[in-house]
């Protein structure tokens, strides 16, 4: 299609004339699309963002909710939940604390349970060890984590701690497995151009499944 022609068709009447003129000027350059999102901030994003999204996300990303003390605690907990193992790195390797810091700004419902849960944890530690969680030694930290990490066997008086740890586990896992390290760890093999020829034969056999004659004959096949 003749791009100039289509731009002209697009241009009539509405879009601010400046934007249209700009598009025309740029029409021979390769990265014209970037310009059309008409904000310098857009360069921060690698996915399509409308103007209102750029404004909102830029604002959200400039905010902080947790204190340094809270962030330090989150980082320790995140690495207890997802440590480095022989398959992949740890939660902090994958940037999980920064994700949690953002997500509580984006989803304010998490704010009170997170802040309150962190304080609950610190108060337990202060009472038992005379130190907040982040300053306890590893043995002390694991003692308290073991009190709240196992919902079925936790004591009723630690129920609030269990609820907090469940949330912390959820956010840590989600942050980790949606990171580059985590996606690789899971072995998610998609999100790339591909042709689907069905379940691999060995897996089909392992699962006790098979394709019907009709499917083998009529379904789409690719070389």
């Amino acid at each position, binding site marked *: *299609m003749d791009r100039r*022609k*289509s731009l002209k*068709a697009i241009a009539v*009447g*509405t*879009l601010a004339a400046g934007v249209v003129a700009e598009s025309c000027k740029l029409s021979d350059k390769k990265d014209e699309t970037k310009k059309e999102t008409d904000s310098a901030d857009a360069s921060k994003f*690698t*996915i*399509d963002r*409308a103007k209102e*999204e750029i404004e*909102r*996300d830029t604002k*959200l990303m400039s905010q902080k909710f947790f204190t340094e003390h809270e962030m330090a605690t989150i980082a320790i907990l995140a690495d207890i*939940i*997802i*440590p480095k*193992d022989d*398959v*992949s790195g740890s939660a902090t390797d994958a940037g999980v604390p920064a*994700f949690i810091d*953002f*997500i509580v700004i*984006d*989803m304010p419902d998490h704010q009170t349970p997170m802040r309150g849960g962190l304080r609950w944890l610190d108060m337990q530690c202060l009472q038992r060890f005379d130190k907040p969680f982040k300053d306890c030694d590893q043995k002390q930290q694991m003692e308290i984590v073991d009190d709240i*990490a*196992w*919902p079925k066997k936790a004591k009723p008086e630690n129920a609030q701690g269990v609820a907090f740890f469940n949330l912390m*586990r*959820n956010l840590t*896992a*989600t*942050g*980790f*497995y*949606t*990171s*580059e390290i*985590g*996606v690789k*760890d*899971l*072995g*998610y*093999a*998609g*999100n*790339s*151009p591909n042709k*689907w*020829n069905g*379940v691999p034969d060995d*897996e089909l056999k392992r*699962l006790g*499944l098979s*394709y019907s004659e009709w499917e083998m004959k*009529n*379904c*789409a096949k690719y070389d």
Partner: protein
Amino acid sequence: MGDLQIKKNPKQYDAIVVGSGAGGGMAVYTLAKAGLKVALIEAGPMYDPRKNQTQFKNPWESPRRGASTKFRPFGDFDACYHGWDIDGEPYTKKSGTQWDWWRARMLGGRTNHWGRISLRFGPKDFKRKSIDGLGDDWPISYDDIKPYYDRIDRMLGVFGSNEGLENDPDGIFLPPPKPRAHELFIQKAATHAGVKVIPSRLSILTKALPDNKDRGECMFCGQCNRACSVAYADFSSSSVLIKPAIATGNVDVYPNAMAREVLTNAEGISTGVAYINKDDMQEYQVTGRVVILAASSCESTRLLLNSKSKRHANGLANSSDVVGRYLHDSTGAALGGYLPQLFDRKRYNEDGVGGMHVYSPWWLDNKKLDFPRGYHIEYWGGMGQPAYGFGFGIESMNGKHVVHGKQKEAGGYGASLKEDYRYFYGASVGMGGRGEAIPVYDNRCTIDPNVVDKYGIPVLNFDVKWSEHEIKQAKHMKETFKEIMHEMGAIITWGGDDGPENNYGLESPGKIIHEAGTARMGNDPKKSALNKWNQAHDCKNLFVVDGAAFVSQADKNITWTILALSLRASEYIIDEMKKKNL
């Protein structure tokens, strides 16, 4: 606002189309290809997935890892701008009633992210009143629309299988993709439970179309809801219809243009459309020989009701008082869980097409049931791209199942927990019903006398309630789903405990985003707004080609029928113009 004035566009168009989704896109395409000069009024911005790309992006490219926002209710990568809630554009509801209204604001509308489920209505779907006495028959039959279905199958592309089913007609199908692993389990279990499972019918090009060099073959990334940027291999009105229409040179697109009303003259004939340009907040008017509304059922209805004049005192094309009435959505209920057979599964690229590879068309006889009409079943599951919410609730899973030969305590942390996430990944499975509701005279939207949006346009007030028919249908859905899940040994984790207290999990009306019926067609001008050509009884140069024209919406997603009817209406317009009747 000191110099606020109405700017009249001097250009005289052959046709003005309001809305660029399935109905509007097909009208624009058909008219422009025939050489007519078309103005397209779209309330949102221009959109092309090649420029506005979210396809092939990784979860970490979204700061919220694909979670939803108000701007993208179906997630940060979803290709639909806006949804349930738009700042400055409210709607209201009668107390004690429910209606959720999805509004897309972009070129191509909802077709950029829709499920591509492309089902023809069957012969019975046009004659429901004759069969069960409820609702009304359409003024057309399957034979009237079949040639148009055939043509859009060829023009836009749809995969599927010819099954010879009485009310789920065969089509011109591309080959369907093979089922995924969880779909093979479903196929087996559902068949055992007496539920037929066949290849799904989606408008995705599993093979390139023979005569179309602008679109390529599917790349099986499972991301049609992000709109196909590389190959345009899924049907989106923006890339498949509007883009080639613009290339004819016959179309002027007016983006960010919120239509205010349809203008009419002293004889009651429509002369054009008034709109506000959201960029400069100025008022504009365009004129044309024919006005075609395709703004979505309820937006088109709002336009009609807001276009009052001496000749059209009850709103345009509304001497029958049916405009706004018979508003209905598909019924919907769902449940899900996981399949232990799929624990610790082999990793491979299972994305497939953007949606299910198999589905179940309605398979029962209503004479033996306590509710009218049917539903189809959609299925999902498997190894998807991880997104926000991944791993939530592991403590309710990892104490229940043996992992690599070990019975573990629920919850936990550390290397052992990492092992669990890997072990359970890809085992999820779920299903949902989409059924036919009975269109009811009193289920309606009207203009709220007290509320305007930020453009000063009066807004809609909804008054819709489900009846026993829909609730009983949802009950039947849940019973069926549980049976299928049980049959394959799946564990239900959500949606399994619904009962009469919550209408068996029946989604509130509007939630399935298939609204239709508010300017229905019919042969009797006292009981319908449009004739069988989507043409207003009261105003011969006004057409409505979205879901508003539907008499009923079957247990089939309505897009394919919107496209077929819009093609049919557009060719009728061309014919009538040639005959000087328009």
